[in-house]
């Protein structure tokens, strides 16, 4: 995700919020939230080198898997739970998103859009599994387990009575509005669970 995209995601978070960044990588977004939005919170990451980068940047991070980390948090104990570019690699998406909606008053989900025209083109005309900037791996080496489009995600939300509070669509650096499921490479959603708040 571009720096521009990070900023747009950070702008979805109310200043001063508590945040939990699941799959925080080297902590770019988390650092931005703490520095520029006055947030507090920590990340969760599985990769040792990424954890070292976070520690060296003065960020707090828990080493381990996302599911276990969510289980260690009480209901509605975090203002915003963030799953940026990590949902497609989860084994149990339903369970983790449910847990994220339990722990977070709001949840941000960002993912590569499998409905983008270049994906469709490669599948339809090439007959091959698509390789794109957001999905850069071959079928045999990809860590991604789930391939889904903006429409898929919105249908999932509707089915679970999950409210979509805001949607950002990106075509690389640019935000795009027209025909997002065809033209957006990435989608970012701010969502909220169905329960009474």
């Amino acid at each position, binding site marked *: 995700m571009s720096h521009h995209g990070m900023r747009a995601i950070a702008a979805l978070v109310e200043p001063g919020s508590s945040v939990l960044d699941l799959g925080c990588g080297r902590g770019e977004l988390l650092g931005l939230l703490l520095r520029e939005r006055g947030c507090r919170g920590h990340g969760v990451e599985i990769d040792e080198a990424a954890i*070292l980068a976070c*520690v060296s940047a003065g960020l707090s991070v828990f080493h381990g898997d996302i599911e276990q980390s969510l289980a260690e948090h009480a209901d509605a*104990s975090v203002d915003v739970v963030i799953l940026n570019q990590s949902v497609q690699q989860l084994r149990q998406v339903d369970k983790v998103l449910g847990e994220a909606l339990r722990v977070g008053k709001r949840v941000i989900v960002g993912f590569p859009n499998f409905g983008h025209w270049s994906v469709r083109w490669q599948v339809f005309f090439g007959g091959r599994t698509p390789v794109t900037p957001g999905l850069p791996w071959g079928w045999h080496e990809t860590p991604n387990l789930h391939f889904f489009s903006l429409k898929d995600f919105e249908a999932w939300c509707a089915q679970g009575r999950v409210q979509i509070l805001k949607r950002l669509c990106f075509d690389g650096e640019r935000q795009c509005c027209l025909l997002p499921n065809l033209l957006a490479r990435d989608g970012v959603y701010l969502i909220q669970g169905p329960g009474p708040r």
Partner: protein
Amino acid sequence: MAEPRSFSFNGLTLENGAFLGPVTLAYETWGTLNAAGDNAVLVLHALTGDSHATSDGVPGEERGWWEDLIGPGRAIDTRRWYVVCSNALGGCKGSTGPATLNPATGRPWGLGLPLIGIDDMVEAQSRLLDHLGVGRLACAIGGSMGGMQALAWLRRYPAHLERAVVLATAARHSPQQIAFQEVGRQAVMADPDWAGGDYYQGPHPASGLALARMIGHITYMSDRSMARRFGRQRKGHGSDFKFTTDFEVEGYLRYRGDSFVKRFDANSYLYLTKAVDDFDGLEPPLAPTASGGPRVLVGGFASDWLYPPYQSRAIAVACRRAGLATTYTEVESSWGHDAFLLEIDRLAPLLRGFLENAGEGPGEAP
């Protein structure tokens, strides 16, 4: 090796209510305390360690137990930090312990010494730091029993601490951990030379203490590290005795046991293992911190079955819930519990990164 210095004070009231005095701590320091008194790093040794954490790169000096982490240009850089390490209260490397003379009787304390807790060790250290002119500690760092002390520092003096590093330890011992310690203590006390702890005039309980150490060493290694180090190698010397030390691993344990006896006091072993068993770092719990509390790094090691990583993680979760900015990492290693002494290549960048950054954002929402 340079002799440790010592600091004595009139005494302290222990957590259990008993008064212990006078108290002496043996300690060493490296680097220079700055004018503000805020660049001190307190290094806390494990069960049978001592104040000699490093030679600080001085030629001809004996290597310390964290030699490769502490020194000029190393992760805990003595050109930047004023590093202090003292022998724990209850130990036998110059600090007050059961082998120390009780001034009231003119004889060693022996079992007359009151039981000492991890918090008492920390209290004594804080007196030493006052004496040295240290204001707020830049960091308290330790592994195993040293990690418990770092946790006790967090609970006891959160305002006097900027950072804490807690490695390879537990907030409280599990029954399994207590069981191993108790077998070690029983080995010491079953030795007739132990003589109720009053053995200082005669032979020391060498076979009992050596056996305790052999048991301890098994728990410090891992299945993999033992297999790699010893395999099923035989020592190859013939002997008529059926139960001689055939295997390399047997010879190694005998050697570690025998060499331990030469450097360690059996009663100290009893006192220190008891202190570790009795410790409960989360009861009373850490007080909630609004913001600006110490930053915490907690580390477990993958193959450590004596202090399994889940125990380290539980400490990290408790720190986070108390509002502290907390990082937890599980360091990949096959060394078992010894990893916190041996896994230098992985620890060094982590410690340097943690110590040298300014820290981003406040702690957690408690």
